[in-house]
Structures are given as structure tokens and as C-alpha cells.
């Protein structure tokens, strides 16, 4: 569909033209994104290494089973699916904005940029809710033969193995409650660190998209004669979606 009109036998490396046939700005955006991919990759691989090195890790289906306004209903995967679809949808509106830019259709670019920004804000709202829910959660944890109430933070992980009824009664504690042992302390740091770093990318992506929207509205790209800035902002935005695909895999699915 996107057949290029490049004649075969073009000598790309003879000078006088970009050997990659794309502008400097787009090349540099790609190389920035590649380096960012290694940053995220290093974070996720470090997380994987620690997770592989312990016998028991937090079970994502237990940790992420809540949904706003659903009370204590056990809904594993539901909320994070919503977040994933929000980000996929905003990726589609972004690529549609780029498409309208190719057609020099300013109204179309404006419409799809607004939708993309709304998608980004919706995702950030979801993440804010999820973090709040995790930090303020109350879980009974057996610490030094007594029960403490913990949320999930960078210093507290209440998602260890469950303590049996017998153990609880032997310790003289109420045996009808769900009590766990503390889980590996690294869980909170990795979860909040990596989703936070990703969320910060989403936040800066929203800011970039907002700037692009304003510049479109002011007619800067029409004056310039092309909408390449929308393409560059789009590359960044799709990268944010791409990273989420892997965060989703590593933290929520497996």
C-alpha cells in the first residue's frame, strides 16, 4: 500500500542525500527512542532477574484485582485491560493525526490530537487510581509473631505466601483472617519505579502533544508546508504505547 517510488540501484552512500532517506529530526527521534528502549529494557530485565532469583513473587492476579467503584470484587486483569485499551485507542488516534497531516488537513489533525491527549490523560487518571489503591490498601501481614496492616509501597510488600490456619492458631492469633508473610521487598520499588517511569513518559507525551496541538491550531505547520512535527511527536507517543505492551506483559500478565 505504501509503495515507495525509489528506483532500484539508487546509490545511497554517494553523498548529496540522506542515506536513510529521512530527515535528521526523525533519525534522531528514532535513535533517542532506541536508547530509551534500552533504559526501559534494563529496568525490566533487572526486575526479571530479581524475580527469577526468589522462590515466591507477588501473584499479579492477587495484587491487581480491583476496579474503581467495584468494592472488593475480585476482578483480576480487568482494570489493566482497560488501561491497555485506552493506550491502544490513543495510539490509533495519533496515527490518524499523522495521516491527516500527510493530507495537510489541519482540522483533522486538530481533532485527532485532542482525542490523543484525552486518551493520555485518561491513562494517567487510571494509573493515579491504581497507585492510590495499592499504597492505601490494607493487608494483614505476619511480622514478628504479630499481625500488622500494610499497603504496598517501596518499603512494604504484603504479597508473600499465605499463613495457614494452624500456624495462626499456634501463635494465638485469629485464624479466620487472610494473613500473609512479607513478600520480597523489591516488588514495590520495581513496580512503582517502572510504571512511574512509564507514566512520566505518558505525562511528557501529553505535554508534547498539547504543544503540537497548539502549534497546529496557530497554523505553524501550514506555514512550514509540512506536518513532520506531528510525525515526530507520534513516534514518541507510539513508543510509550510500545513500552506499555512490555510493562503489561512483565507486571500484569505473567
Amino acid at each position, binding site marked *: *500500500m*505504501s509503495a*515507495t*517510488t*525509489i528506483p532500484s540501484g*539508487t546509490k545511497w552512500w554517494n553523498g*548529496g542525500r*540522506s*542515506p536513510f*532517506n*529521512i530527515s*535528521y529530526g526523525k*533519525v534522531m527521534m*528514532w535513535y533517542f527512542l*532506541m536508547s530509551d528502549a*534500552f533504559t526501559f529494557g*534494563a529496568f525490566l530485565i533487572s526486575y*526479571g*532477574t530479581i524475580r*527469577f*532469583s*526468589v*522462590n515466591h513473587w507477588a501473584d499479579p*492476579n*492477587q495484587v491487581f484485582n480491583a476496579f474503581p467503584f467495584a468494592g472488593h470484587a475480585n476482578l*483480576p486483569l480487568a482494570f489493566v*485491560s482497560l488501561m491497555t*485499551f485506552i493506550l*491502544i*485507542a490513543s495510539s*490509533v488516534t*495519533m*496515527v*490518524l493525526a*499523522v*495521516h491527516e*497531516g*500527510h*493530507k*495537510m488537513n489541519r482540522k483533522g489533525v486538530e481533532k485527532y490530537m485532542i482525542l490523543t491527549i484525552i486518551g493520555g490523560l485518561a491513562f494517567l487518571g487510571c494509573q493515579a487510581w491504581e497507585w492510590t489503591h495499592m499504597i492505601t490498601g490494607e*493487608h494483614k501481614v505476619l511480622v514478628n509473631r504479630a499481625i500488622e496492616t500494610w499497603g504496598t509501597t517501596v518499603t512494604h510488600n504484603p504479597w508473600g505466601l*499465605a499463613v*495457614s490456619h494452624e*500456624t495462626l492458631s499456634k501463635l494465638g492469633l485469629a485464624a*479466620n483472617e*487472610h494473613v*500473609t508473610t512479607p513478600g520480597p521487598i523489591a516488588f514495590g520499588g520495581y513496580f512503582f519505579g517502572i510504571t512511574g517511569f512509564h507514566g512520566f513518559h505518558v505525562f511528557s507525551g501529553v505535554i508534547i502533544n498539547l504543544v503540537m496541538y497548539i502549534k497546529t491550531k496557530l497554523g505553524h505547520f501550514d506555514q512550514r*508546508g*509540512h506536518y513532520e512535527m506531528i*510525525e515526530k511527536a*507520534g*513516534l514518541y507517543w*507510539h513508543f510509550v*504505547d*510500545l513500552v506499555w*505492551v512490555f510493562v*503489561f506483559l512483565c507486571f*500484569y*500478565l*505473567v
Partner: protein
Amino acid sequence: MSSHVSSPEITHAPEHASGTGRIWKTFWVLSILTIIELGLGYYLYSQHGGLSHGFTLATKSLIGILTLAKAYYIVSVFMHLGDEIRNFIMTIIVPLCLFIWFIVAFLWDGNSWKNLRNTDAGSREAPKTEKVEHAPEQGAKH
């Protein structure tokens, strides 16, 4: 369609598709792959750890492969890398091959670390079965 060549060094502008069919097709592909992933993830959850270790690992690997397929579609269609020329695609793809070593070496290391801990650095046998205490059923809400 206007040419959007922004620099004299760019000699050929790729012919952009006039319709949005490819974009929507990719949207559906991504959605369906996500739904399959969620289905597999939910299946693993619904079995409450009753599946064999190998089968669980195989299912998780399948989810990983589906994730790579999603990544391919995002990069190739949404980011238009598939429309760039081969020279450029290679400068992105070849460095990313470092990830193959990166993932294998570090996960291997993590696993080895666990084995060393479980066996006191190889000085004793690993416990044959791990005793996992299951949560009391009525306490499933938290």
C-alpha cells in the same frame, strides 16, 4: 496528496496510503492479540496453580511471543518503520539484537542465584517439594 519532503537530502517521499484501512486493520490485530493474551492470562489464573510447571512456562512464553507480535505491528505500521528504507531499518533493528543476550544472560543469572540460595551454594540438595501454604478460602477477599 501533497509532497511533504522537508529537506533537500530526502529524494524520495514514500507514497502514503490514501485510506485509513491499514490503520484500522492494525488496531483490530492489536486488540485481538491483547484479548488472546488476557484469555491465556485468565486461564492460568483460573487453574489456581494446578498446572504443571512446564505447561505454565509454555503458556507464559506464548504470551511473550504474542507481545512481540504486537510490538512488531506498532513499530512497523503505527511508527511507519516498515515504510522506511532498508538502510534505516537495519540501524534500528541490529542494535536491538543486544536484547537477546541481555535477556538470556540476566534471567539465567537470576535463576542460578535462586538455585545457589536454595542449595546453600551447591552444598546440599534442593528441597524436593516446596511447601506452599494455600490461602484459606473464606479469606479470599482482601
